[in-house]
């Protein structure tokens, strides 16, 4: 039985929304921790988090200042923000609801439970004491859902769409984090690194749960060059850009009518592998990341055009 176009699209979006909620939860957690480590003189605040999610305009339409409370509200619970954690989970749940005959029952139950948990306990996001636990539970529940889907759903075309959606979202988030953090966190990369630069690069890694894996791979002191290489080009780390794109490529290969898309994606992947992003200065790095973002948009467009 071949898959309904509408269902393929719903699976794809469900996975994207779930991944978005998980990544956003990590981002907020890491930022909370980072702020505790930085000296008062380094004014970092919460605005970069809004920038990472490309939501500056909407944010300032709804809030006056990028205070901790306002940003957490905007990013975690605000329904008026379509990519807040609660909005993403709600969208994932609505998607799951329309395809509950496709995904395993337990997965639907988990998604439903996750949404209910997140909404019923949303006040926890505002208390510094509770926030970590609250967001961590959201992350873990997402991981449970991913595991359940991997372990109980037939790995058919629908599952490929799910993985493709997840990886495109992941690639998107990785590039956004690198773009904003490398610019606004570390304005002056050419100079000698301070201890705080180190902490900030660590936070970039941690936002992508990449810290431990990075340390295993790269024994040297944390530095811009190696972090960029790792997050953009490490083929075996699941949240690196290259890995995510390779996963999309692998998924597409199993789908019908894939020639044009895979060809374009293989081209992009080759480009990424041969690039030397670590050698780029900040403005060139930004251009490079922009290019990758455009590739991701094109990829989404052609998948949507071909299959949905």
């Amino acid at each position, binding site marked *: 039985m071949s898959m309904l176009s509408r269902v393929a699209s719903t699976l794809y979006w469900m996975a994207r929304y779930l991944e978005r909620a998980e990544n956003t939860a990590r981002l907020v957690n890491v930022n909370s921790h980072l702020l505790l480590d930085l000296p008062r003189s380094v004014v970092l605040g919460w605005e970069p988090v809004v920038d990472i999610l490309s939501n500056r305009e909407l944010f300032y339409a709804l809030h006056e200042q990028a205070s901790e409370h306002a940003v957490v509200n905007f990013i975690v619970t605000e329904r008026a923000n379509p990519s807040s954690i609660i909005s993403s989970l709600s969208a994932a749940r609505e998607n799951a609801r329309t395809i509950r*005959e496709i995904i395993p029952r337990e997965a639907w139950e988990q998604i439903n439970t996750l949404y209910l948990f997140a909404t019923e306990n949303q006040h926890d996001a505002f208390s510094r004491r509770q926030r970590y636990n609250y967001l961590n539970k959201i992350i873990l529940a997402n991981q449970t859902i991913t595991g359940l889907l991997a372990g109980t759903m037939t790995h058919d075309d629908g599952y490929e769409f799910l993985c493709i959606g997840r990886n495109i979202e992941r690639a998107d988030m990785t590039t956004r984090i690198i773009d904003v953090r490398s610019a606004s966190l570390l304005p002056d990369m050419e100079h000698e690194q301070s201890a705080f630069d180190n902490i900030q690069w660590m936070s970039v890694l941690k936002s992508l749960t990449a810290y431990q894996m990075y340390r295993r791979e790269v024994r040297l002191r944390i530095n811009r060059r190696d972090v960029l290489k790792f997050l953009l080009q490490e083929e075996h780390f699941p949240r690196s850009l290259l890995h995510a794109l390779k996963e999309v490529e692998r998924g597409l290969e199993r789908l019908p009518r894939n020639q044009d898309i895979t060809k374009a994606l293989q081209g992009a992947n080759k480009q990424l592998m041969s690039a030397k992003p670590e050698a780029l200065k900040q403005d060139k790095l930004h251009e490079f990341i922009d290019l990758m973002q455009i590739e991701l948009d094109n990829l989404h467009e052609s998948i949507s055009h071909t299959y949905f």
Partner: protein
Amino acid sequence: MAIKWNSYDVANFHDELVEDRGIPRPYATDLCNYLAALSDKEIIEYKAAADSAIHVMGITFRVYNDEDGSIDRAWPFDIVPRLIDKKEWQIIEVGLKQRVKALNMFIDDLYNEQNIIRDGIFPAELLEKSKNFLPQCKGFSPPLGIWAHICGSDLVRDDQGIVYVLEDNLRVPSGVSYMLENRLVMKRVFPEMFEKYSILPIDDYPSELYDMLAQMSPRDIEEPEIVVLTPGIYNSAYFEHAYLAQQMGAELVEGNDLVVGDDDIVYMRTIEGLSRIDVIYRRIDDNFLDPEVFNPDSTLGVPGLMRAWKAGNVALTNAPGSGVADDKVVYAYVPAIIEYYLGEKTLLPNVPTYKCHDAREREYVLANIEKMVVKPANESGGYGMLIGPHSSPEEHQAFRELIKADPRNYVAQPMLILSTAPTLFDTEVEPRHLDLRPFILSGKNVTVTAGGLTRVAMRKGSTVVNSSQGGGSKDTWIVDMESL
């Protein structure tokens, strides 16, 4: 001890579990003893466990209201099951099969020879004024002459213990998924009770449904392509559409997923292109099925569907036009219909029904309206009804005017004193009125669910059981007392 049967007052009702104060019916003795042995704390825990199971399983239904649009509500569920002795059930089952067989023959006849009208059993004028008769279906007969493949008939029991058919739902009856889910909730919450009883299983319904649908396939192939056609997630029964599709392994489709080609074949849009469909279990009303033929503004349906159906290239269940027999005026004729087609006496009685289009019966209704239940012919979900004894003189007068203005659209029945069953409130039980909706599948064979969906009116004294109007539900156990 929380539940004390000797203070459970059945009043002048027939109670499904308790014969008289403190005396359970024979088949309910074990259950009543078990419940009486529970502490308050246990009862609260079990109730909470059931609520949490419903919450986690996402069992919901949608309610419409003008202010909030539509919202999802958790399915209201009572943990005290409703029991019926298998011996009694077997008689009901035969009666239901008889009824549905005759109704299908009636529909097929109306759209073809109309012998029943020619023979003077069924008045021609009633057919002319029927809202659900579709002239577009005339001269067509679906495979095996079956129109209403899935029927949900509502049964009630009066204070004398007699079971009546209250109405037949032949269009797109809903509720079967709740019947199945109620059983799952009970198994999660009260596994002990299932050891005490031999309860007939109900979980084969999705396979029975699948088999019946497969029999309708126009192509004689091993795995016909079966889909469930839903209006979408905003429909109040969407939960059920998705549930049944999932349980059958069928595709759940919306109108936009389907397309009828110039070859009059129905296809669905897939990631590989177009793919042929054989059987559509449609959960969309006739009027919205095909904008080429019916409501041209419908975006829920599929243009050309009727063409494909009449060309015999796709099966539609239930067939368009089945609703002609699901009219509350036609209901009054069912005993005559059974006798006419099958030459048999009706096994399951109808509630006595006064037809307002008949001058004499109308006079009686107008004179006694405060004692009667008045129903419009073509509404469902309990909408547009008058319950005489619970209404004001102004409401009585309003309905008198409605009846006079459009007599063909109304029937009236005496107010039945519905049976009750113990229903949990906090840690005590109180009697509440209920009904039962079994589901009957007609294919090469006719099958009936073991029991059905029991719906309870949660408000004291109320007899309105519809979930859209605050009704709840119970698991229904057909218990085999001889196998113990």
